[in-house]
């Protein structure tokens, strides 16, 4: 399907978000002082993993920045750098910029160096730049230099008949004498880098290889190395036993008893040969050099000190004694050890045991599956259908007149119970902790406080509170604005705070909690509180309210939510972005939420947002208006009333109010407002729903009858009809009929308020 690397790249950036989250958590813990020794490791690993992945995708800027950050964290980890307030500020800044670089990299962009460079300079100032260049150099994979000393050829002193045979082999016999080669008159011995080649462009390397016991202990296997050499070209090898072979039953499997001399005829260069021995470098005697046949012959003539056990030359494709050694493990060193070396075993075994017992104690991480959101939404929709279907079935059973103790009815009860459980479980899949959202706000506080020159810190609570994913996404903007407001307008300047005897550093608190089936998010500050006289004066000045009114504190506070309101004398570049609390309020309302504020002078201000857990279902009151069935969200209804004639008063010629607990509330006839009928002459005995809005204002909505109170599945109308005034969405009821879900707030604000019959209309209606 799609390019797997692209998929991994996409998944890398998702992982980055998780790592950035872990990074923030760790930094928070470090700065709060409730970090343990593992905290710095977690922080380090997060940055380290980002760097590692970034390297795989060639994201140089990300690698570079993460590397510098990692160095500083490593210094803390290693104890050479100690954490203080200043360093934490720098780390937080690095975390912020790291997330910027991650996002820029994701979008194939490069973050302006003007942003990264100063922070990198600060990091270098803290840690120093030592060792850095060296490390970058080492990122190069070129193996460290191996001995090119052609003097190693002397090792061939041990060469014997085998080597003589080797020289007789046709291909090796073709080797020209480099000294007589007209195209190359430089003797190879004096020019180490200049590799002589045979006529066919092949070189012959002579490799002396003597493993040490350590080589076998680490799981290396000479045979495999030789096979790789065979991939490069023709291999001639010769085995030498460097001690007397012990009897089989006395053989130490890991004892290094054999040495090899190998001639490799290849078109590969020396580094390719050296690469094969990369893992065994340092745990064997290794000599790789160009083979000089003339010298070799000379050596062959010389008497070997310890005549090696002659072994036949191995022509690569044929089975020879060499492969046999591997196929009969116990007979020769490279085999797995039946008798483990005692020392490491005891130690390692106890380590393994400890690890094992740990494993049984520590519950392993909860397994997760990543699922495409579309699939979940499909499931959510299907479950919605199931709920509707179940309701329809229940209705049919009731209509069929089956007794409630019949098997069908009790089976249906069980079905209803299961359906509800399935629905809740499915909703839980869409739910996410608010943590990621809250973490982003930490940065907003840091940036906002820097911008306005205040010292502020974010304190969060209830980060694990879960809420629908879409709600979380759509909360980001309003919450950002509220947090900026809290820093900009809520908190006082440092001097004012000092004068009021408060700590210089202001606190912005962000909390989330479940409360009676909803999620309540609060943004509060410990600032000066709402300056109510000033707010009222401003509202008057802007013509939002008539001058000289006597307003309650609540009413004044609610002025903040009116369009075009700003309390800052000078619009700062921070919260004065053309977005006011009115926009925040409408965003929250669009999520089915409510927002309210409380404030205490000198103590601070708090904004509280109450949100539904999900956008997929709501608890509704099913009502009848004329012949139509409608649903009113239960969350909007404070109580239901049966109207008394005596409580209803006329207000002007065509509107009426009703007395509810000694307060007059406007009376709205939904049947008339929705155009199903003309207002009635009398509403005595009618049923009304008392609606309380966010600002505390109330209205009584008259309906004909209340049918039911139940959970309904929300079916959006936006896609098909756009915004319908007074209607939030639709649902399908148990009888299969479609019912509109009303939006009381919208109905009330657009209401005509006519609850008295208009004679003209009445005439028309007959």
């Amino acid at each position, binding site marked *: 399907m799609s390019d797997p690397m692209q998929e*991994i790249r996409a998944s890398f950036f998702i*992982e980055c978000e998780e790592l950035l989250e872990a990074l923030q958590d760790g930094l928070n813990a470090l700065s709060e002082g409730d970090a343990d020794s593992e905290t710095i490791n977690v922080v380090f690993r997060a940055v380290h993993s980002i760097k590692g992945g970034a390297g795989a995708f060639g994201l140089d800027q990300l690698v570079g920045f993460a590397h510098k950050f990692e160095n500083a964290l490593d210094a803390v980890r290693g104890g050479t750098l100690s954490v203080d307030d200043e360093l934490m500020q720098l780390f937080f800044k690095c975390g912020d910029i790291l997330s910027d670089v991650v996002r820029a990299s994701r979008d194939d962009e490069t973050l302006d160096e003007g942003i990264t460079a100063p922070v990198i300079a600060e990091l270098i100032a803290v840690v120093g730049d030592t060792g850095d260049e060296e490390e970058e150099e080492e990122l190069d994979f070129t193996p460290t230099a191996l001995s090119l000393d052609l003097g190693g050829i002397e090792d061939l002193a041990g060469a014997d008949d085998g080597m003589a045979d080797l020289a007789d082999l046709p291909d090796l016999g073709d080797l020209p004498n480099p000294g007589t080669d007209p195209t190359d008159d430089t003797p190879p011995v004096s020019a180490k880098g200049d590799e002589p080649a045979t006529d066919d462009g092949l070189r012959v390397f002579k490799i002396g290889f003597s493993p040490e016991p350590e080589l076998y202990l680490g799981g290396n*296997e000479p045979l495999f190395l030789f096979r790789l050499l065979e991939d490069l070209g023709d291999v001639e090898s010769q085995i030498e036993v460097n001690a007397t072979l012990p009897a089989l039953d006395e053989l130490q499997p890991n004892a290094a008893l054999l040495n090899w001399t190998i001639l490799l005829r290849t078109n590969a260069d020396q580094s390719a040969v050296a690469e*094969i021995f990369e*893992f065994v470098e340092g745990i064997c005697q290794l000599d790789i050099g160009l083979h000089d046949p003339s010298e070799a012959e000379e050596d062959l003539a010389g008497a070997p000190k310890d005549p090696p056990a002659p072994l036949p030359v191995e022509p690569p494709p044929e089975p020879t004694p060499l492969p046999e050694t591997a196929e009969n493990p116990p007979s020769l060193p490279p085999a797995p050890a039946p008798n483990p070396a005692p020392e490491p075993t005891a130690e390692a075994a106890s380590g*393994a045991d400890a*690890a094992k017992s740990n494993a049984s104690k520590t519950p392993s*991480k909860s397994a997760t599956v990543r699922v495409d959101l579309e699939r979940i939404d499909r499931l959510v929709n299907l479950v919605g259908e199931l709920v509707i279907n179940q309701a329809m079935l229940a209705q049919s059973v009731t209509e069929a007149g089956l007794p409630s103790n019949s098997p069908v009815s009790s089976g249906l009860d069980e079905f209803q119970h299961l359906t509800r459980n399935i629905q809740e479980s499915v909703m839980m899949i869409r739910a996410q902790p608010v943590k990621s959202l809250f973490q982003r706000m930490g940065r907003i506080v840091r940036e906002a406080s820097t911008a306005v020159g205040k010292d502020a810190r974010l304190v969060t609570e209830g980060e694990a509170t879960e809420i629908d994913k879409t709600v979380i996404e759509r909360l980001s903007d309003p919450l950002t604005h509220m947090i900026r407001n809290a820093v900009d307008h809520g908190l006082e300047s440092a001097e004012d705070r000092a004068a009021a005897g408060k700590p210089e550093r202001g606190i912005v608190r962000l909390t989330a909690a479940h409360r009676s089936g909803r999620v309540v998010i609060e943004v509060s500050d410990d600032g000066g509180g709402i300056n109510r006289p000033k707010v009222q004066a401003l509202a008057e000045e802007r013509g939002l309210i008539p001058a000289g009114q006597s307003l309650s504190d609540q009413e004044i506070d609610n002025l903040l939510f009116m369009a075009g309101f700003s309390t800052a004398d000078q619009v700062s570049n921070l919260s004065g972005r053309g977005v006011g609390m009115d926009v925040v309020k409408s965003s929250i309302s669009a999520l089915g939420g409510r927002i309210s504020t409380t404030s205490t002078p000198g103590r601070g201000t708090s904004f509280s947002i109450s949100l539904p857990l999900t956008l997929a279902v709501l608890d509704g009151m099913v009502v009848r208006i004329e012949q139509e069935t409608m649903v009113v969200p239960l969350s909007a209804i404070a109580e239901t009333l049966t109207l008394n004639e005596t409580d209803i008063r006329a207000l002007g010629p065509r509107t009426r109010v009703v007395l509810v607990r000694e307060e007059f509330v406007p009376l709205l006839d939904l049947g008339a407002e929705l155009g199903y009928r003309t207002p009635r002459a009398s509403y005595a005995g009618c049923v009304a729903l008392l609606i309380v809005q966010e600002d505390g204002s109330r209205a009584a909505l008259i309906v004909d009858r209340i049918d039911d109170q139940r959970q309904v599945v929300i079916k959006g109308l936006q896609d098909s009809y756009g915004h319908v005034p007074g209607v939030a969405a639709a649902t399908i009821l148990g009888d299969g009929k479609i019912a509109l879900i009303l939006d009381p707030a919208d109905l009330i604000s657009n209401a005509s308020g006519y609850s008295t019959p208009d004679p003209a209309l009445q005439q028309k209606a007959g």
Partner: protein
Amino acid sequence: MTISVLAVDDSRTMRDMIRLALNGAGMETHLAEDGQHGLEVLDGLMPDAIITDINMPRLDGFGFIDAVRGLDRLQSTPILVLTTESADELKAKARRAGATGWIVKPFDPEKLVRALRMVTG
């Protein structure tokens, strides 16, 4: 015969990349998220080779190798260490812990496969 490999890395991206590289080379890949998890996976597995990261939560690469080498049946199973630093000291430490070889991140998939072939024959 299919070579089976256990790869232990706490980074999902790395695990994905290793799997892609190894499956592409016809190897059978098993994955674990940290050393501890690696040991759990090894409980029912006898891989031809093991690849492990160093920096991991719960049980790091060194501890993991140490524990693996303590198991008789895995004593000579080749273990490659994945590391971003190629510092000699780190390699020496890996080797002391019982590693067979190392791969420097970011790794070239071909190089990884070659290294595995190098140690598994």
